[in-house]
């Protein structure tokens, strides 16, 4: 059961790029994706900056090969999962049992919103095709069918840590010899339900978000999808190219403090990070870069920061929140950030934390304000923290 799990493919689409190469280019040249809302019809388009994928539903349907009437969540998932699957270049190997584990917080609700407008006036109204893929599981099925994957299909939904848990579950399916290969990650599209939901919580910054800044005002939402292809050492030996890195450790813990806020001392994030380090057999000083959850809300950054201070003490690694580029992509965020963590190892690069002017005074560390390169990024820790106290950390290691 202690089979190592390797990353052999990756795919991402976000507000900063429609594929991994574009995302990497934006991350390295400071190309930020947060702007006025252009594609989602909402009253908040001028007021709440968000990081939309810079493509209309029609454009996405052309690229994904899905019908334009399908949920945007499915199209984003399709594009990133296909990229990851092609990148792995693995399907020519006969007899592999392949799984698809996808995560989403809101599934096809972007279409349900349209349905509900008509339905609420008359329950006989509303196009059924707009509500048939409401549940996140249906979105996963659409993409699995198009990828031609059917051995194990699964959908995870644990709020903002969803796709970290999808990656963990996918890795465990490999370790338990249930599948040989798994495409794992998550997807979410910007929609009115979520945008208004976060707005009622008064956690959206009306300016550009400033994660881990003393004067941070909240988060900006984003959208996108990110997937890894994971497999075992046995399958890696059959591949033409070397794996990008290993998923060397992971851990999920619950903060059990409040439904929507994390404890000020960061108990949950602390246990997720220390559990993931222990699983990887690493010490805090072995970590070279932390891809922070770093949403930019008062609560998240205090809680996550407190946990980092406790765990790393004087051995602070470099760290940054790439949500300052992509916004908070919710159920997709850990998938996208798993791709970014892999890129950090592959290219020996630590991304910057944009717009950080005054680091939080509560802590004796500060995220990176400029991009840096180091050939030896060996271990990267990626954090995700969601509603319901759901905290997950992943560790990626150079092989």
């Amino acid at each position: 059961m202690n089979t190592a799990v390797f990353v052999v493919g990756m795919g991402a689409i976000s507000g900063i790029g429609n594929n991994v190469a574009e995302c990497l280019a934006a991350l390295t040249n400071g190309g930020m994706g947060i702007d006025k809302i252009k594609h989602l019809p909402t009253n908040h388009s001028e007021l709440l900056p968000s990081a939309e994928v810079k493509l209309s539903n029609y454009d996405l349907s052309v690229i994904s090969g899905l019908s334009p009437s399908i949920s945007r969540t499915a199209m984003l998932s399709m594009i990133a999962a296909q990229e990851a699957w092609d990148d792995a270049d693995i399907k020519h190997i006969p007899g592999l049992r392949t799984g698809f584990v996808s995560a989403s917080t809101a599934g096809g609700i972007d279409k349900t919103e349209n349905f509900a407008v008509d339905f609420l006036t008359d329950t006989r109204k509303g196009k059924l095709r707009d509500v048939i893929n409401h549940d996140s599981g249906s979105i996963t099925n659409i993409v699995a069918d198009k990828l031609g994957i059917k051995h194990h299909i699964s959908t995870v939904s644990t709020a903002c840590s969803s796709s970290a848990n999808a990656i963990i579950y996918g890795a465990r399916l490999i370790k338990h010899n249930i599948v040989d290969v798994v495409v794992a990650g998550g997807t979410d599209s910007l929609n009115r339900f979520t945008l208004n939901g976060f707005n009622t919580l008064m956690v959206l910054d009306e300016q550009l978000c400033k994660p881990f800044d003393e004067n941070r005002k909240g988060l900006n939402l984003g959208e996108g999808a990110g997937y890894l292809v994971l497999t075992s050492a046995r399958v890696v030996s059959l591949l033409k190219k070397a794996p990008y890195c290993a998923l060397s450790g992971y851990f999920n813990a619950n903060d059990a403090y409040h439904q929507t806020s994390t404890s000020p001392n960061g108990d949950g994030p602390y246990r997720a990070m220390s559990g993931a380090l222990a699983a990887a057999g690493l010490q805090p000083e072995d970590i070279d870069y932390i891809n922070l959850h770093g949403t930019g809300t008062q609560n998240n950054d205090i809680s996550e920061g407190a946990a980092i201070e406790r765990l790393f003490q004087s051995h602070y690694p470099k760290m940054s929140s790439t949500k300052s580029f992509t916004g908070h992509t919710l159920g997709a965020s850990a998938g996208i950030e798993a791709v970014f963590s892999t890129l950090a190892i592959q290219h020996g690069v630590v991304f910057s934390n944009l717009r950080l002017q005054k680091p939080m005074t509560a802590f004796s560390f500060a995220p990176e304000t400029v991009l840096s390169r180091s050939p030896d990024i060996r271990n990267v820790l990626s954090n995700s923290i969601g509603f319901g106290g759901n905290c997950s950390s992943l560790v990626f290691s150079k092989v």
Partner: protein
Amino acid sequence: MKAYISSAITISPQKTFKNPLFLDEVEVYTDNRLTCIEPDYSEAIDPRLIRRMSRIIKMSVASALACLKEAAVAIPDAIVTGTAYGCLEDTSVFLSNMIEYSEEPITPTAFVQSTHNTIGAQVALLIKCRQYNNTFVSGGASFENALLDAMMLLAENDNSNVLVGGMDEITDMSHIVLSRMGLYKRKPASNLDLFKTASKGTINGEGAAFFLLANKPSSRDLACVDAVTTFYKPTDITETANYIKTFLTTRAINCSDIDLLITGNNGDTKNDEIYAQIQTSVLADIPSVNYKHLCGEYPTSTAFAVWLGSNIIKNNAIPDALNFKPISKSKINKVLIYNHYQNTYHSLILLSSC
């Protein structure tokens, strides 16, 4: 890897909660919507904490807490839930408010509670369970994935236990929408007659069921979960039959070893044809019962089936509610649950006496 079921609790359209009798009487429904029989929650949940909880959250949290109490476990090592639709009522409430108020500021509680992992999170919060917490929303395989996750956790961690649950609720909106999709019978008769006439459509159901699974036996175990597997969109009946055959042969199980088959027949002609074909081929000559006349059809109904199967094993008796013809075997040792939800997700769950 065996998982010991040390307690099983369900709130369902039958009188199953806090009822020492095992389906001794059947609740009759003449509509195509079966509704859970809910208890008085004031004993089960602190009234100050219950105020934000929608129906599915109350049913689930009450079942989960009762399940832990029954198993004499204060804090489990993990909580895993499966729900296809999640907290639908809260979703509808927030969506309707948002549309009604044209995106003007509205109250956040329904949004917060609509998150799919709310139930697992609420249970964790109530009992201060800081361990692993996961939620699957895999349509008709949501509960099966939760169960598989639990089984993997038990294999990974010595001497541990997992609280695992499956739940879905019917809301007025979902019932209308799913009815418009043609899922339910136009002219429903009594749920007791669900399998008597061949017609299109089934009856809508709901429920919440929780189990405390452990990797070590205890004196209170009802049964064991030996295995769970799912398969997805088989191209034809041969692929389905082959999958089931492989499931049995890799575990060295003959049909004659299985004392009872619980099938997911739901009264819809097209849906039930698959079971008929399987029961005349790969699962031939196994005594079988149906369960969806008791709980209705919904994506996580297999959680009810596991509750049913484990109680059948524990009591070594099949309640009359299942219309079962008596069999010669004196001991029910192995029960196989075979279900498919709209021929998309199929699942096999094997239970045995401990």
